[in-house]
């Protein structure tokens, strides 16, 4: 029995923390305010090897395990949730589907740039009428000669319109079920809509995507025809652990700054942290952070051991994201009025946290997955 990360993991955590604190933290508030996608910083994350961590060296990757990716996402997310999701989605939704389901030719074509962080991939699953119920996908792909012609609308697609977005992998209905297609940026018939104005994740790139008579060659089908539904469920399993790590970073940031403030802020003749009302709230938050960390890294460990982890990933995602939302609320309360002011990063975390309970499967969907794992016939 062992709960320690390896010394190499710890050394890596320190590197990513140094990077996050010197290259990201000083700018996070500005990017948030301006809704800027910081291209140069994303490329620097690529240079650090973050986008390639979990992929084999033959594709330019770091040969790392999933725990190392969780460490990176947690540490980046501790200073900037937008950059955390950019990394998480770039790896999990951009590169991973190509790596998992791509043919040798498809990998040769798209993977090296995605792994290096020179390019970003997006994954278009959600539609106006198909979110949690992704099986209700309406986008269609039909055979025309040697090509597939895709028609449909995708919404809320992360990393779909950055200057380095190379591909958008989309699900579409075919005669034999749901299939997955790789659409290269710039393909005629592909329209990337203007970015959303979002509550949080301002520096993360999110667009609606329209496919109108969008034709891709036959060899752009990813995985077997009709296997799209099964494949994206398995992609989401990985992604849930990553979102759990992102939520953990958020919760840790809130706890750390709230503790510091509770010690230094005085009211009624002493630090506010001497009131049980504050101290116990922070004690509870510590428990939540500890739990979130254990659930996240246990799920990552199960995956790294090659063991089933769907259930553990859903538990981790559900718990950590709800803990993150709680943490932002409690930390804002500890800061009082100054927590409501945008100069305080807590205000940004407060806005950023909510989506964690929604993206890559809502909390309700996680509860369905967990309940089904218990053998309950929940619909």
């Amino acid at each position, binding site marked *: 029995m062992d709960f320690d990360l390896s010394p*190499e993991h710890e*050394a*890596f955590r320190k*590197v990513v923390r*140094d*990077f996050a604190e010197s290259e990201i933290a000083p700018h996070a508030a500005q990017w948030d305010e301006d809704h800027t996608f910081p291209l140069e910083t994303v490329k620097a994350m690529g240079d*650090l*090897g973050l986008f390639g*961590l979990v992929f084999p*060296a033959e594709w330019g990757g*770091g*040969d*790392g395990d999933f725990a*190392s990716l969780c460490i990176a996402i947690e540490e980046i997310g501790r200073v900037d949730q937008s950059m955390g999701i950019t990394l998480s989605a770039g790896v999990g939704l951009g590169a991973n589907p190509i790596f998992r389901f791509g043919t040798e030719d498809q990998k040769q074509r798209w993977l090296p740039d995605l792994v290096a962080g020179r390019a970003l991939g997006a994954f278009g699953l959600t539609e106006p009428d198909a979110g949690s119920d992704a099986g209700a996908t309406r986008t269609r792909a039909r055979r025309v000669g040697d090509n597939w012609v895709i028609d449909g609308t995708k919404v809320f697609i992360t990393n779909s319109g950055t200057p380095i977005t190379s591909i958008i992998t989309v699900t579409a209905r075919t005669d034999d079920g749901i299939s997955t297609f790789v659409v290269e940026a710039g393909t005629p018939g592909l329209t990337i809509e203007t970015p959303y104005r979002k509550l949080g994740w301002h520096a993360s790139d999110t667009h609606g995507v329209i496919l109108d008579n969008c034709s891709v060659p036959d060899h752009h089908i990813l995985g077997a025809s009709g296997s799209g539904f099964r494949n994206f469920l398995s992609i989401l399993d990985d992604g849930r652990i990553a979102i759990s790590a992102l939520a953990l970073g958020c919760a840790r940031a809130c706890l750390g700054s709230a503790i510091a403030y509770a010690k230094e802020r005085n009211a009624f003749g002493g630090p506010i942290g001497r009131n049980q009302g504050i101290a116990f709230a922070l004690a509870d938050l510590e428990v939540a952070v500890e739990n979130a960390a254990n659930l996240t890294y246990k799920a990552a460990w199960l995956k790294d051991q090659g063991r089933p982890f769907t259930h553990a990933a859903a538990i981790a995602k559900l718990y950590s994201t709800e803990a993150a939302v709680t943490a932002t609320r409690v930390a804002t309360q500890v800061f009082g009025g100054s927590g409501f002011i945008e100069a305080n990063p807590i205000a940004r975390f407060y806005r950023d946290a909510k989506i964690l309970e929604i993206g890559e499967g809502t909390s309700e969907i996680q509860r369905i997955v967990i309940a089904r794992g218990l053998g309950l016939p929940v619909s």
Partner: protein
Amino acid sequence: MNVIVCVKQIPDPAMPGELNSSTNTLKREGKLILDESDSYGVEMALQLVAAAGEGEVSLVSMAPNNEVSGMRTALAMGASKGILVSDPSLQGSDALTTAKVLAAAIGRLGGADLIIAATESSDGYTGTVPEQVAEVLGLPSVTFAKHVVVEGGALKVNRQTEEGYDEVTCPLPAVISVTAGVVEPRYPSFKGIMAAKSKPLETVTAADLGVTPVGWEGAGQTISNVTKAEARAAGEIIEDDGEGYAKIVAFLENLKVI
């Protein structure tokens, strides 16, 4: 081109340092990290070797308790191998003894075309070790290097001075000390960290290197007393009421800097 970098492993400056009350020396028992001052030397060495297109970067370090964490960081950045000198008898060694030990370790590695050290460490600040290493090895030494290239087998250094810089040309092999900030040290990658785990690090004692006497016994110094540095007086704060610039100009004129 082969380069050896002298790297010091120091207590994390983010943690409050503590003095050993009987010897007036810094307690160095816990985990040590790579002195940030040395990360510039490591980066410069890696760049010089890359520019030369061949060769490798090696490390020498002297630290208590077989500590290699800081050396692993430098290996993760891209250095190839290293020698650690660790030995309880080294406790209390002064700068000259340290230089003798490092010089012997450099000799054990077979020397190099260039030896790089930081101008001073972030915990001891004696700022004399690099020149002493050069003297012990009988090599030329260039201090305060801020820009270094190798051209036609010779070293060309821009050497920081108070007014600007000197252009110095010097034969190889040589010892240089580099100032902080001269290059941008790379972040070690995960791949680098994993590779560092299996890179060769030899740990030897002072006796293995044939350096005696060392430690308190070999030291030409004792530290008789340590006192707190005087707190600096708070600066003057000028509230800008629209005339702030005039007060700043007057202040600078008064100092005769403008």
